[in-house]
């Protein structure tokens, strides 16, 4: 039984570029949440997807957008990258919107 898988594991971009991160939830899970974790900080909630719709959103600008597909996998898109977007991006899946989260290993994004 595969857990939560994220790709790529590492990514280097330059300012102004766009990036797409991908996440496959744990088998049987229907909800995907995305978090941004800066070095030495706690995970910050970006948004949550359930039934292919964005259900909740944290305090992130519109440059951050996402999508959930019929197979429950999800993408996080970030446009017009800033240096401050450098962080570990974590995807977490759950069965339902209020349950415990299972995290993937994350995508380490570096913006130069």
């Amino acid at each position, binding site marked *: 039984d595969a857990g939560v898988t994220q790709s790529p594991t590492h990514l280097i971009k330059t300012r102004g570029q766009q990036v797409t991160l991908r996440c496959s939830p744990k088998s049987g899970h229907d909800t995907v949440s995305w978090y941004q974790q800066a070095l030495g900080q*706690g995970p910050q*909630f970006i948004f949550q997807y359930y039934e292919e719709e964005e259900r909740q959103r944290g305090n992130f600008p519109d440059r951050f957008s996402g999508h959930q597909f019929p197979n429950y996998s999800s993408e996080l898109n970030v446009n017009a990258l800033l240096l401050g977007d450098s962080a570990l991006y974590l995807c977490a899946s759950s069965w339902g919107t*209020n349950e415990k*989260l*299972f995290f993937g290993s994350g995508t380490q994004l570096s913006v130069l």
Partner: protein
Amino acid sequence: GQQVMQIPQYQHVQEGEDFTTYCNSSTTLSNIQWYKQRPGGHPVFLIQLVKSGEVKKQKRLTFQFGEAKKNSSLHITATQTTDVGTYFCAGRANFGNEKLTFGTGTRLTIIP
């Protein structure tokens, strides 16, 4: 918006000593979860508390949820080197908000 703070930010203990981290929310919580993140790893779910005043134990770990459902604590008895990592509490607000807000974390290091 909802804020979740943890103290202390860092804790260094001798192996065999006890450890406690405290979590405080700016708003009343419907439930609180605890996660552990090993260095270089991703958060892993430990436990969820739902009821006011609830106490749960997992071997050497004791979790408490405050009577007012605004604070929580994690106590580890007789720490071991395997306890190294950052401990995060994460809470959902009590007004139907499904966003899980993570605390600032307490980083535990063990001196052998």
